[in-house]
């Protein structure tokens, strides 16, 4: 009963999404992950494995332009609530909370949904299980993101054009055919170029079922 009372008293100092620093205590107590992304090019902290996988799936979704983990510090009465992720997808702004089985306090959800709706943001609770169901896809995207972050300074314009030309010449070409692993000089550049094209949504690959390897098929996007 008292929880319903805070529905009218949701507030935030700012609704400009910026990652809320994770206290050392939480960093040491929770199963935290830190990862630099391409769409969030800072060291983001994810408070669970599900949050990390969710961020990886956002990286792989070409309709998502940005995301920010732990974006706001909302006040609900005397409680502080920090949502898990802020997502800009196809021009729409979403705020996402990940919970086991999608179970979230009803009163809190109503309050936060109403508050964010006033600011044209959609609040959504996602079940961890729905993220775990796409774990392989997320792990493949994590692999791609790590490679792209490590090779930020690499210029691959010419290689990207070459990869696109190869993909146009054949349908369903494999990653091994695009990046010859025996060519130690060119293969790393071609691999990064390929990953960049995949990340931008110019190419698509079958990443949902199997680990990314030289047999993975790559196609041009329609």
């Amino acid at each position, binding site marked *: 009963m008292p929880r319903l009372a805070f529905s009218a008293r949701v507030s935030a100092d700012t609704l400009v999404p910026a990652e809320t620093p994770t206290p050392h205590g939480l960093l040491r107590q929770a199963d935290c992950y830190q990862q630099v992304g391409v769409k969030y090019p800072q060291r983001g902290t994810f408070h669970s494995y599900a949050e990390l996988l969710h961020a990886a799936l956002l990286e792989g979704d070409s309709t998502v332009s940005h995301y920010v983990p732990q974006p706001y510090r909302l006040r609900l009465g005397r409680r502080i609530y920090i949502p898990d992720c802020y997502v800009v997808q196809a021009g729409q702004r979403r705020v996402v909370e990940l919970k086991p089985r999608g179970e979230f306090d009803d009163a809190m959800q109503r309050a936060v949904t109403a508050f964010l709706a006033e600011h044209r943001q959609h609040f959504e609770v996602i079940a961890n299980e729905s993220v775990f169901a796409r774990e392989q896809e997320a792990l493949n995207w994590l692999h791609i993101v790590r490679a792209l972050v490590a090779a930020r300074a690499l210029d691959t314009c010419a290689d990207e054009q070459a990869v696109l030309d190869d993909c146009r010449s054949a349908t369903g070409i494999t990653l091994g055919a695009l990046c010859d692993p025996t060519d130690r000089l060119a293969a790393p550049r071609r691999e990064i170029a390929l990953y960049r094209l995949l990340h931008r949504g110019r190419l698509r690959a079958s990443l949902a079922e199997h*680990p990314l390897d030289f047999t993975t098929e790559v196609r041009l996007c329609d």
Partner: protein
Amino acid sequence: MRLTWRQRLMDEPGYCNFTAWPVIDPNTLPVTKRRGFLRNRHIVAQALAGRSFAEVAAANGVDLSLVSVLLQRSLGGDPDGAPRLTMALVPGTHIRPGRRRKALPSLAAPAGARGAFQHLLATVPGLQAALDTMLVAAITHDRHGQNVTPQIFHAELLRLLRDAHWPEDTYPFTAVRQGYETARRYYHRRGQELQLPKPKPTRVIRPLSPAHAIYQDIHIDEHTYDAHTTLYLSLDGQIIPLRVSRVTLILAVDAATDCYLAYQLCLTQRPNQYDLLALLRQLRSPWQPLPLTTPGLQYAPGACLPSALGTPFILAGLGVVRLDNALAHLAHSVRDFVCEREGATLNLGLPNHPKGRHPVEHAFDLAASHAHRLPSTTGSHPHDVLREARKNLDRPPTITLRALEEALSVTLTEHNVG
């Protein structure tokens, strides 16, 4: 939905074994029920052994339907609950909680009071919650509670009923002594239930997906060694002796291949961020074998760390770097190196769950088995029989740091070709 005995046996075939059922000593039962219990037990045991029900009924001189009834009583019931098993074979045992269908006894229409108290609790709004609140306050010695006795409990029950405008000509007002006795029994039973420790919330830890490629899942941890020795530091031409009793080994292990990737020996019991950074940098520099000076030590053929195998192994991208939550691992320099420079994922793991990084813990087990062969070891714990003997306290057997470095180098690299 209630399960039939057949469905129960199909779901949980272990119940087919009657010898695994709980045992009730017939001598503990009242004499009037003992004979019936023995007969029922015999019937169920034979039925579960696979004999036809007709044979079992004929052998025991009972009606055929009784065999099914007994099996249903002992095995049927709530699918989420445990079956009553042997307890259901005691004649007269109530399998389902009683539920009153008749109106409660009143002055105008006297009747039996079976199930009347439970009916009250279920019918009067807020009655059970109010009684529980009073009991909880008494059990937890709440400052606003009261010391409850069965008399007080009964009086409070009557007061709550009057507040709820319960008719005065109806149970429990019409059967004061019977009502009091039921309230007393409820008071003791419910009080015991409320005092039971509440189950702690358990955290379900999801198993990690196994890594399939080298460098994709790297586990790092530290291990302290006993090495009573003296180091000689040369500073501005002066030789300074320095006593060392503990050194720490930091080891990086690849989870997919169980290969040791790098190690760093620190001359301290508490390594800091720079020691960890030195280890991480070793992943990016080719490993060189030590020139061995200790007699009897030599590298196994092909023994090395992966970074000695060439550029592809030095430039390989890192996946997840798993550390424990030591303060040195939280240093921004470490986090920046792993995340910003290498593009890898940093995971500090769950506290008190070292088995999440079992490859590296197993590696230390291997290394400790060699280190504990030295008579100067302090062992794994204060009561370890392997720890240093008293007679060696004055003149402890020593191992030189160089010998320890060489022994570790040989042991760890040998593991990679084993």
